[in-house]
């Protein structure tokens, strides 16, 4: 990081990477948010199992819904922290004062959140496969792809709303209220496409849903990057 201090300001992507590294370094040293979100996700997976009658509904039919609902709520825990951590001692002023593009702050924050969410998924998906006894062989690669696409969409919207919600009077409540309607197409597409894969159906059957995921990602990554500067105080 020191080589940038004296030299000319970094480009947008380089700056975004610096912001992401800063957030990840904080998270790695404290680990509180990640571990809480992870334990929350695992608890959710087990609780959901007992919310249904396991003799009436096959575990494989439950698993996709459980996975994506839990993932959404665990992701919200991480997103809350994204800009919440900038509140203490007005740390956000340091970011705003830095000679970097506003978009770089958004992209960096989103990247750090993506790593956070991917870390949760990396544990939650195997946990669901394990606890729900899913026969997942070749589909695991495709499932990882779906997870990646879903995570991008979720993080793109969630990061923007986190920046807004943190400056309001009821941040903890407002973030889910703003974000969840936007997660509907993501959760629906992710759950529908992974349900087909978990049932051993060919990838082609999940294709229409994957297209929605990709379109959502493109539209909202672009829109949120462009909209983000408006959420910052001049």
């Amino acid at each position, binding site marked *: 990081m020191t080589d940038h201090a004296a030299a000319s300001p970094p480009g947008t992507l380089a700056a975004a990477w610096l912001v992401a590294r800063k957030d990840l370094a904080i998270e790695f040293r404290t680990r509180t948010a990640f571990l809480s979100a992870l334990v929350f996700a695992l608890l959710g997976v087990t609780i959901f199992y007992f919310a249904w009658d396991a003799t009436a509904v096959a575990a494989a039919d439950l698993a996709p819904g459980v996975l994506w609902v839990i993932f959404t709520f665990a992701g919200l825990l991480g997103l809350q922290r994204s800009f919440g951590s900038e509140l203490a001692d007005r740390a956000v002023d340091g970011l705003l004062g830095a000679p970097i593009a506003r978009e770089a702050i958004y992209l960096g924050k989103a990247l750090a959140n993506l790593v956070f969410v991917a870390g949760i998924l990396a544990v939650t998906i195997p946990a669901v496969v394990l606890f729900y006894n899913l026969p997942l062989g070749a589909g695991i690669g495709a499932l990882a792809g779906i997870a990646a696409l879903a995570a991008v969409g979720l993080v793109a919207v969630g990061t923007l709303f986190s920046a*807004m919600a943190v*400056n*309001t009077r009821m941040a903890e409540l407002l973030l889910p209220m703003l974000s969840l309607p936007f997660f509907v*197409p993501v959760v629906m597409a992710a759950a529908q496409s992974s349900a087909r894969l978990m049932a051993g159906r060919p990838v082609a059957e999940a294709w229409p849903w994957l297209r929605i995921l990709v379109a959502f990602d493109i539209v909202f990554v672009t829109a949120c990057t462009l909209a983000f500067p408006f959420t910052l105080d001049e």
Partner: protein
Amino acid sequence: MTSGQPSVSPPIPSQRDPLLWVALLGIAAVYVRALAFTPIEARQGAAQKIMYIHATSAFIALYVAFVLMAIASALYLWLKDEKLDRVAESSAEVGLCFTTVVLATGPIWGKTIWGAWWTWDARLTATLFLWFIIVAYLLLRGAVEERGRRARYSAVLGILASFLVPFIHLSVYLFRTLHPMPILLKPSAPSLPNEMLVTFLFSFAAFTLLFLALLRTRYRMATLRDWVADREQERA
């Protein structure tokens, strides 16, 4: 506004809006015509009469109020004119009323015609989430103190929401086509007999007038509120 001498009288005279009374009279007239002077539909019976309030409210909520909110939001971010923010705010709030009417009258109609209060049809789901988003929009406005920030935040949400609704519609549509359900399709609107069409158009005009009147009343309220806030700030 702050030209040294604080202005004493509010920017708008506080009086009843005649347009509102005209609109309410129009609505009353529509009811009389719909109930007493329009024939009862053969297949659906009296339940069909709910169309005159349901379909018109739906059109205004989705295609007028929501679109106006999104456009005013986008224009606000561009021009930074407070009036546009007030238009977006008023449009959202009045739109919420119309969307609530749609969601309240829909199940009543649906139960008698489809035999179910609710189905996860693309249009129903999109309307429901539109309602959620407008509620979130208004809650967001209520949770931000500073006026400029409130306007920017809600404008961002207003624009993003206009991108979201097509996605919800599309995904629910896909959801439905892959899982066909028995009684789901709305009766494909046969061309209305003349008497019904006239009532429908009449209802449409009355509801549009009501929307405009409510929008103007709500907009004036927002202007007054901001004016009061300005005066308080001047005194402080």
